[in-house]
């Protein structure tokens, strides 16, 4: 009798609203993520990145310890939450990964053009991803605060905004098609609104991240690259002004958001 009543109650609770079912599915995913956080494989990439930073490598057999990520040569802590930014030595606005390419070229003697065209996950590009993971992790818990004092940084924000809303391709998508409003989803995947600060550890503040579904470590450049793939756009150049400008737009909008990178994703 008692069990019948419970069954009836359970059915009554389970049946009525699809919204409830979605909520529990989304909750399930959140729980799954929480469980995964106990052992984030991104730590392996962090360790690799730290080693790569300190190790003498490349044609010049030098380490990256004199690399200036914006806060002075060798300063790693806090650098990630202030990137992309303008660098006087290159005369360019650069994100972390394009800056690492500069340092690997100038300090270690790697060929810049070769580095940029190396596919994700291969050779020196896998090393850049590991370096970016460690460097981002050194700002964990800090809040995004990109500089906007240089004219180039302001100009890149404006260009990034235009890139964000740029519609094209066979499906007419832009970044804003999915990330321009609050509370939207694709299937069950929540979509952060990147036209403003979407919250601590959400959107720009969650990458680099380890992706459980494919077992890969994803840097911000790879995250943007795959967004463009899903937008059905052609292939964006690694560290291109376009991708850096998008980083400035999202990073400035995320001002005050706490970085949890490297995060773990489904």
């Amino acid at each position, binding site marked *: 009798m008692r069990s019948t009543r419970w069954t009836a109650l359970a059915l009554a609770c389970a049946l009525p609203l*699809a919204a409830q*079912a*979605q909520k529990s*599915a989304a909750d399930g995913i959140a729980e799954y993520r929480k469980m995964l956080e106990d052992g984030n494989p991104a730590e392996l990439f962090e360790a690799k990145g730290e080693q790569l930073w300190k190790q003498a490598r490349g044609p010049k057999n030098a380490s990256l310890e004199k690399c200036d990520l914006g806060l002075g040569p060798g300063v790693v802590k806090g650098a990630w939450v202030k990137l992309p930014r303008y660098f006087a030595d290159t005369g360019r606005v650069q994100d972390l990964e394009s800056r690492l390419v500069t340092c690997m070229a100038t300090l270690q003697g790697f060929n810049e053009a070769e580095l940029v065209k190396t596919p994700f996950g291969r050779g020196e590009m896998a090393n850049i991803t590991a370096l970016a993971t460690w460097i981002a992790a050194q700002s964990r818990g800090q809040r995004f605060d990109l500089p906007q004092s240089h*004219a180039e940084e*302001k*100009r890149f924000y*404006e*260009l990034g*905004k*235009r*890139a964000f*809303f*740029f*519609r*094209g*391709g*066979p*499906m*007419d*998508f*832009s970044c*804003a*098609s*999915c990330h*321009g409003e609050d*509370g*939207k*989803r*694709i*299937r*069950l*995947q929540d*979509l952060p609104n990147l*036209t403003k600060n979407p919250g601590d550890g959400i959107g720009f503040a969650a990458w680099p991240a380890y992706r459980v579904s494919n077992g890969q470590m994803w840097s911000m450049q790879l995250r943007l690259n795959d967004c463009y*793939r*899903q937008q*059905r*756009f*052609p*292939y*964006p*150049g690694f560290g*291109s*002004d*376009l*991708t850096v*400008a998008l980083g400035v737009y999202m990073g400035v909008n995320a001002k005050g958001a706490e970085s949890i990178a490297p995060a773990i994703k489904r």
Partner: protein
Amino acid sequence: MKIRILTAIGAAALLTLGCASLPSPQELDAQALAMHKAAFRDQGIAKVDRINQDLGQKACSSDKPPPEAVAKQIEAEALASIKWPTGGRYLGDWREGEKLAQNGRGMTWTDTSTATSANGAQCYNCHQISKEEISFGTIGPSLYNYGKLRGVKDPYDPASAAIVQYTWGKIYNPKAYAACSNMPRFGHKGLLDENQIRHVMALLLDPQSPVNR
């Protein structure tokens, strides 16, 4: 006093410098376009000509809607582009429609063919459709009970003609009804062929479809 005046002059000078150094909105538009052209390369089926914008893509590439007259022009051109189904056959098989609605594949640089047969209709990415599928997106409105709510008892009854035609047009080229709609132009851009659209139509409008039961 003197210091205050100097500070004021300094601030004004900085402000002028700051303003002068940021290009005009028109110049920024041109720079953004050049930035896109410089950034992309062909990869597989995704060629760089995909970023050549048509009127609607260009006019809807901002956080502000286009002027009324431009929106009207986009909608009129989109409406004129719609190819209505041969033989007046609007509906196919809702079972095939459900498969297409579930399928989110097609047209990325990791897909190998631009043929319509390689593409899904992507529907569940953005819409609720049947009640059984709880993994649906919310960018578009719910389409659950789509036909039922619109009183479609027999899709071939003349009383249903207006809603049936609108639905075809909406799938073929949604910009005919909203210039900056988020929805892809499935017919106009060759993403789905006539028969595939018929199947999706049946999913939405066939009284036997799980959408309307």
